[in-house]
């Protein structure tokens, strides 16, 4: 059983986060809320999202899984304005999700979840933790996009840096310690990441004030931020590029 009502912007954020990595996802539902774990087809990035039931206007669910096509979900969201309430009900008999916006009802066939296993996150020991204002990162990404297709994240006890090296040009975002929300760093670390993934992840954090990153050297980055008025949590993991000849 699943029945819920939510503001359209809450659902939109959830869908934006999921569709950075996958087109179809398995939603895990239980009485406390919903969660999604997914890995992208290239196995470069992973996401772990959970939204508590208090992010919804109304929410009740038993333990169950639901396979959803994100494009269909987006079609329904396009019908709604900010503030509109979208209601969702699971039709067990026909295995469909019934969504209503205003006077429109969409009955949505669900995707088979048999092939979708929950990915296991690797156990990582990331020595550095830094929290940056999301707006600063967005600005840095905007500056890098025309220069290169990858970006280096560097952290030292003095601050955080993001640099992008192209063939001829380079971009550098430098945030000294006092401009950071928090910094826990004893040694300098540096890892290189694909800009398209990193950029999509940061853009998915559209309503988060700040983003926390866990970093190492030539190691994946773990990103954490909140969505849905801090009632939801997103963890991303992104594998690095290592440019050795």
């Amino acid at each position, binding site marked *: 059983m699943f029945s819920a009502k939510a503001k359209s912007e809450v659902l939109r954020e959830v869908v934006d986060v999921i569709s950075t990595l996958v*087109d179809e996802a398995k939603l895990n539902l239980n009485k406390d809320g919903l969660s999604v774990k997914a890995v992208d*087809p290239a196995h*470069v990035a*992973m996401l772990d999202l959970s939204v508590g039931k208090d992010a919804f206007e109304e929410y009740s669910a038993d333990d169950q899984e639901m396979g959803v096509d994100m494009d269909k979900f987006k079609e329904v969201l396009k019908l709604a304005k900010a503030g509109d309430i979208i209601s969702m009900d699971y039709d067990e008999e026909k295995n469909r999700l019934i969504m209503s916006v205003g006077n429109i009802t969409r009955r949505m066939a669900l995707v088979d979840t048999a092939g979708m296993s929950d990915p296991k996150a*690797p156990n990582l020991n990331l020595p550095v933790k830094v929290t940056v204002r999301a707006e600063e990162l967005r600005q840095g990404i905007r500056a890098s996009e025309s220069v290169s297709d990858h970006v280096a994240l560097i952290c030292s006890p003095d601050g955080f840096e993001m640099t992008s090296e192209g*063939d001829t040009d380079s971009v550098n975002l430098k945030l000294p310690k006092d401009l950071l929300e928090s910094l826990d760093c004893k040694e300098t670390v540096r890892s290189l990441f694909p800009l398209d993934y990193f950029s999509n992840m940061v853009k998915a954090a559209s309503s988060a004030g700040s983003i926390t990153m866990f970093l190492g050297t030539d190691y994946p980055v773990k990103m954490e931020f909140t969505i849905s008025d801090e009632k939801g949590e997103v963890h991303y993991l992104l*594998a690095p*590029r*290592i*440019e050795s000849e």
Partner: protein
Amino acid sequence: MLPDSDLVFQDSKSVRKSSLCILCKGSRKLCGKSRCPLLVKYYHRSKVMPLLDRFNLDGSSPPSVFVGRLGYPKVYVGPMVPPIHGNTEILDLPEKWLNKSIDDIINYRFQLVRGMHRTSVHELENPGRIVDLTRELAMATYSADVEAEFTKKPSGRLVLDDSSQPMGPSAPLKGFDVDNLKIDRRIDRAYSDHDLLAKDAVIELHQQGIPVTKIQRAFSVGAFGVRKRRKMVPTRWSITAVDDITGKELREVVKTFGTIDDYRIYWSSRLDNRWAVLMMPTNWRYELIEAWYPETVWNPAKNSRILLINDWEGYEGRTTYADIGGCYYAARLAVCESLVAERRQASTVILREAHPGYILPVGVWNVRENVRNALRQTYESFDSLRSALFYISKRMAIPVKRWIRNSHLLKDRLYQRRLEDFAAG
């Protein structure tokens, strides 16, 4: 092997900015001139054949038709007819041209006279006899006898183009007649189905094993699609449309299969072009990299460096038209066909070296047939990308480092780590 130096090579990114010719390939008038100066050079070299000094022509059409693109949507359409009788199929069936020389191909094409009749691409309900017959001819199974009458004598110059096969002389059409015409049953079925989408018609016919050239020919005369939306499609656009539609469909099938287990290199070499097809054991991805030597068609001699240009797609495909143009889609179709036949998935990087002996553009069939040919051969198998690249370094003239620098997929495979690389420990 060549030295890996910027004096010798120009990389993809700066090629895009500075070399208009390789992006335009004679089709987009990027240099602002009314005719492509490179092609004009070749036009002057080609001699007009005096065999067509007459107002009518009697011969067997391969079958072949032409739909022009200049003046779209008001374009020239009409049959293509040689001054000879019999089975002339080879004149317009690039699927059989793999082992032909450039001279053979020019010779085939130069025999075909294009009849030209101006019409709107939308005019399909009551288009008149010329368009009706052209359409029937485009759907024919075998060579059909054509008697054409012109208002002027055919004037000959060779028309070269990167997408379509070279074209011979042309003349304005007064009228024509067709004899011994047998329409292909399978194409006719798609033609008679007024609710079948053009896309689905193309896919079905390709699944039935009809050569791409034949599907494209019927596609160009507006034989497919929902009745009210049918229209004619210029020959060169229809070639890429059919390559793209069939390739996209097969790509989704490929994605349902498991990946190959090894790194593979397939090989083909024709018309002074060298082709290496590298397959890697990951999810679907695809890239084509072309290297144009100085004095090949799209790299005029004043630029004495080898130009490299690449286009690629990830698992989801691409949303913009490839800069490389029709070749990208023709090669992708060949890759998908092979993977579907094997019921496997892979990511594929095609490396093409166009050496100076490649003096004339012959059409995208060259790309499609060479990649198909490569994939029919037995491949060399490797257990790592590095050993596969080492093998490439021995058979291609361009240093591997230079290929890597211009390849999105190779860089990604070599440098981008996967999450499972960090799973242990």
